[in-house]
């Protein structure tokens, strides 16, 4: 019995042995995943999941251009550059969609691939020996945060990227709380929002601006592609469990916390990147929600169907 407990203890403490880096990884993962999961709820309700995808790819040229100007990967100007191209892609999608006969799905595809290609081109032309490399763009390198300079806080050496992402997370959550009613209203009924004298377009671009900021902060940790997982998978899992937006936001946040922590265990046991571990953990939670979610759970549906067919089993029903 004691050996089992000892093994469990060893397993549980394994990611956090040695220095503080394990703690920083979990906090970094959580500070990135939390604002993503909350914004993802609104994206999901607005049926804009793939716009999140488009933005997460389009921030690349912005980051590269800003980096080429300031030559410092931790500079806040990178956020501005990325935010600018993130907004640019939403404008570009809207323009192609409204000015030509090309439909919205194709407009999204054209806009973000073009900007992403531009980013890749800039990377390969100008930054060959610098920190931005292709691998980092695709899957991110969360573990690199401990190589950045650190700030002394509460007697610990806190890495700078963690501080930046925490500030962005607090800002994003603050924005969601302040504009909660507006976001909720415009997500469900744009017409009603307009009748209250608030332009839904303004809300839309506000959301896109916050999203761009959050996405670019996550970019360094999880790369361009897995950001969508952080945006959509928690929100979708929560959506399968409830009909209420507040509950959905809460569940989505809990999902991001569990998957950031679980990711550490997957990371130390399978030697994969933390980002992909977060996605795998999140996906497992999604499958649980898909099967057992109180609203949409497959198991409840099967059960209901089974009992119904049993109680009404009077042979062929005549219509």
């Amino acid at each position, binding site marked *: 019995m004691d050996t089992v407990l000892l093994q469990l203890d060893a397993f549980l403490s394994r990611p956090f042995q040695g220095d503080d880096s394990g703690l920083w990884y979990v906090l970094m993962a959580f500070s990135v995943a939390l604002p993503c999961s909350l914004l993802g709820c609104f994206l999901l309700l607005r*049926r*804009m*999941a*793939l716009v999140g*995808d488009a933005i997460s*790819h389009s921030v690349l040229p912005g980051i590269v251009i800003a980096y080429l100007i300031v030559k410092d990967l931790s500079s806040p100007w990178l956020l501005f550059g990325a935010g600018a191209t993130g907004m640019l892609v939403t404008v570009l999608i809207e323009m*192609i969609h409204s*000015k*030509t*006969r*090309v*439909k919205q*799905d*194709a407009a*999204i*595809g*054209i806009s973000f*691939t*073009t900007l*992403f*290609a*531009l980013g*890749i*081109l800039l990377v*390969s*032309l100008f930054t*060959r020996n610098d920190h931005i490399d*292709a*691998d980092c763009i*695709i*899957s991110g390198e969360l573990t690199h945060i401990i190589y950045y300079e650190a700030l002394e806080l509460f007697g610990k050496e806190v890495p700078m990227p963690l501080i930046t992402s925490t500030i962005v997370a607090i800002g994003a959550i603050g924005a969601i709380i302040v504009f909660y009613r507006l976001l909720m209203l415009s997500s469900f009924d744009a017409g009603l929002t307009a009748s209250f004298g608030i332009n839904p377009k303004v809300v839309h671009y506000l959301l896109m601006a916050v999203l761009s900021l959050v996405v670019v902060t996550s970019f360094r940790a999880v790369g361009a*592609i*897995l950001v*969508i*997982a952080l*945006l*959509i*998978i928690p*929100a*979708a899992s929560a*959506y*399968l469990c409830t009909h209420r937006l507040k509950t959905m936001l809460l569940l989505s946040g809990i999902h991001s916390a569990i998957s950031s922590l679980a990711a550490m265990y*997957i990371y130390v046991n*399978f*030697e*994969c*990147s933390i*980002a*992909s571990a*977060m*996605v*795998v953990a*999140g*996906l497992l939670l*999604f499958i649980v929600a*898909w099967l057992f979610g109180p*609203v*949409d759970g*497959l198991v409840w*549906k099967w059960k209901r169907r089974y009992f119904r067919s049993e109680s009404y089993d009077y042979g062929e029903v005549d219509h």
Partner: protein
Amino acid sequence: MIIDTLALTLIHKALLASALLGLMCGVLGTFVVVRRISLVGDAISHAVLPGVVLGFVISSQLGDPRNPWIIFGSATIVGLISMIVVRQIIATTRLKADAALGIVLSGFFGIGLFMKRSMLDLMDSAGGLDSFLFGNMATISETDLQAVVIVGVVLTTLVLLLMRPFILVSFDSLFAETLGYPVKLLNLVFYTLLTITIVVSLQAVGVVLVSAMLIIPAATAYLLTDRKIHMMLLSMFFGAGAGVSGSFISASVSSANIANGAAMTLVAASFFFITCLLAPRHGIVAKWLKSKRQRHKVTTENALKAIYKLVEPTGDPRSAITINDYQTERRLETAEAKLQLKALKQQQHIEYLDKQQLTLTPDGLKVAQTVVRNHRLWELYLTSQANYQADHVHDDAELIEHLLDEETVRQLEAELNFPTTDPHGMPIPRPEAS
């Protein structure tokens, strides 16, 4: 094989492969754009990653480190599985297509990255795996090229053979079903072909930019034509063009290591944006010119109509009016009235008798009569055929008078039995009689 005997250099191989990929993506992309499933292509290209990793592992275990057939095969199977998962999510939950695609795209890709790292020691050459993520022409071997050629030829032939049913299913699957086409089977074949195209292109273009090669050439073609067969040919042309020139650029700029996929995408995108501006019918410039011409036409016709209404009571349509009359009739500032009349003079619709007096030219009279006739015919049509009240028809007619063509007018006249007066009792002029 013929390719062995040709002793191709690296650049020739790259050009051949990218031309073929461009053609394939162009063909399938046409359907992707028409069916509005552009983002499905994006989802598949990411979701096949676990299959690619598995293919590398299997072929390494079989002792043939990079067998393209095993890799293509397992990737295609995983791609199809991902589409089934998307369908299941949409069918069994309240989640919509965009969320389902987002989950599968990022989830499968995450699993792929996870497998890539944790199965590293099961693979002989993990370096080759990276070219599937980012696209790299240089890693395409002779066997890869053979596979690409064979797949490309088979696939293009299949699509051309199945063209009619594919087009029908893309536009109206219900109608196709009533005609007796096996719609589900056709869709399965279509998604299989799409997945194969994506898998084969991955190695050259990379995960993200495959969807660019699928969508952008086809969307460019879509701006240029309304006929699906033309669209497909143009899309193949743009795809191959972007493929060849992209890989040529990336191979010839040796100072920088420009990714092949990025170069292709940017070439394709420049085709698209140029076409957006300059396409003969659907281009932005063409549309702008058309709307400008239309605005000009409406202004001219409204001015001539006002003059006609002034001279109509006198019985002689060529009788003279003054600038002042026109200004009062249209309730304009003096300067604006003069400006409008100057424009009419330039088009020789009116001529001045002296400084103040002016009259319609035969040309101007004809235009004026046509517009007034259209207006009154339409009013009559609305009151007699559509049961409108006589005092409700003016605003409608005010808009349609500029748009009716001669053929429609003939039909209206025949329908209304060649009327002479409108519902308000005003005579309907006959421009050709004068």
